[in-house]
């Protein structure tokens, strides 16, 4: 698909590549610098999660359009161990204090839409979207 590009996450440098990709797309779409920074931070967190907990996976950035609105969608997929208790991982203070997962509720707050599917032993898929205001 021409609207989607992906970065495979295997090393820490791939996190930087994912950030760069996200920032470029955000700029192209016309996001302001604060939203650019937010999107990049969200990508950074998700890519880092893959790097730390799943070892490898990929982050895809997609331009999306809905009723004349443009937006950016991040899809982070891995085949890692999965998240045991999603509700717990989405709780504030859990990841930051317990050292597990990585600021998922923070990512959710940075973006407009957030969806997570995870099954134990199979992996995790997170889709997060931000629309241009």
């Amino acid at each position, binding site marked *: 698909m021409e609207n989607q590009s992906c970065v495979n996450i295997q090393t820490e440098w791939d996190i930087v590549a994912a950030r760069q990709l996200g920032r470029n797309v955000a700029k192209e779409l016309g996001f*302001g*610098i*604060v939203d650019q*920074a*937010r999107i990049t*931070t969200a990508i950074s967190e998700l890519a880092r999660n893959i790097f730390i907990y799943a070892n490898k996976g990929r982050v895809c950035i997609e331009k999306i359009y809905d009723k004349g609105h443009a937006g950016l969608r991040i899809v982070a997929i891995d085949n890692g161990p999965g998240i045991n208790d999603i509700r717990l991982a989405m709780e*504030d*203070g859990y990841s*930051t204090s317990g050292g597990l997962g990585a*600021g998922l*509720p*923070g990512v959710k*707050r*940075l973006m407009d839409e957030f969806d997570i599917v995870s099954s134990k032993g199979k992996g995790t898929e997170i889709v997060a979207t931000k629309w241009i205001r």
Partner: protein
Amino acid sequence: MPFREVMEAKYRDILTKYIKEQSESTLYIGQKFSRKSIENQVTPEEIISLHKMILQEIYPDMPEYVVHSFDILLEIMLGYGFAYREHQSLRDQQKELRSEIEIAANVQQTLLETKIPSVEGLDIGAISVPARLMNGDYYNFVEDENDCISIAIADVIGKGIPAALCMSMIKYAMDSIPANRNEPSMLLENLNRVVEQNVDRSMFITMFYGMYDYARHVFSYASAGHEPGFYYDGKNEEFSEIYAKGLMLGIDKKTKYRQYEKNIHPGDMIILLSDGVTECRTDEGFVEKETLLNYIRKYIHCSAQEIVNNIFKDLEKLQDFQLRDDFTLIIIKRRV
């Protein structure tokens, strides 16, 4: 006008003013601005972006390196914004939790409510104050048709919500035990079986149960490992411990309790308490038994309710208004 709409103009105003002349009054306006922006959930990264934008507007020929430096600042402050928003959300959750506990505490109070009986010849006072929102202490009075008042005072080891939940169960267990209420030892034995079967193994309950026969003025009692109370001999103006031996409730279902009896004379007093009273702690250590008895002596001329209220106030003050454990004190005075 909403703050967000005027935010830019206001910030521009403050910034240009301050660049022109560095006055304290402009800094003060800046402080007020930050309070407003926090109130309106403006994040740190938004402020930095605003700062950069306005600066570029006023100084179109601002050196490149200054412009670029803001990207680093923005990235760093985004992390702080991240943490700040999490903190906000945790604070809201805490508020919610607190109000939920407050409601639970009210429910508990209604559940455990007991009326101090008024009987001719007796003056009774009681106070029970939780260290936190919910009470793990419990006391109960029941007046029966045989001219007897039964008095129960209990303490769950531990405090807070688990202790309070446990205590609510005890109250209903007591109400539903059909045993002969005239026998404190029997009541404790029955209750012990209920606790042993129904309460978490890590939870123990101490209880003192007494029965005051106000026709004969005989006090019979038994204790399940509860903090010993005191007996005041009005004639000789002397205190002595109310001795009663017995295992805590919930340890062994076959526990037997011994029952004791005491004749109460005019001017005598029975003082019952929870360990929150004797374990009042100050910087110098525990409150000595003697200190407590001195407080009782100090207020001995007051009514029973005044005595317990005054002692609580004094001990609360002695501990700098921080209760470490739930506090319950009951005084039964036989009028002269």
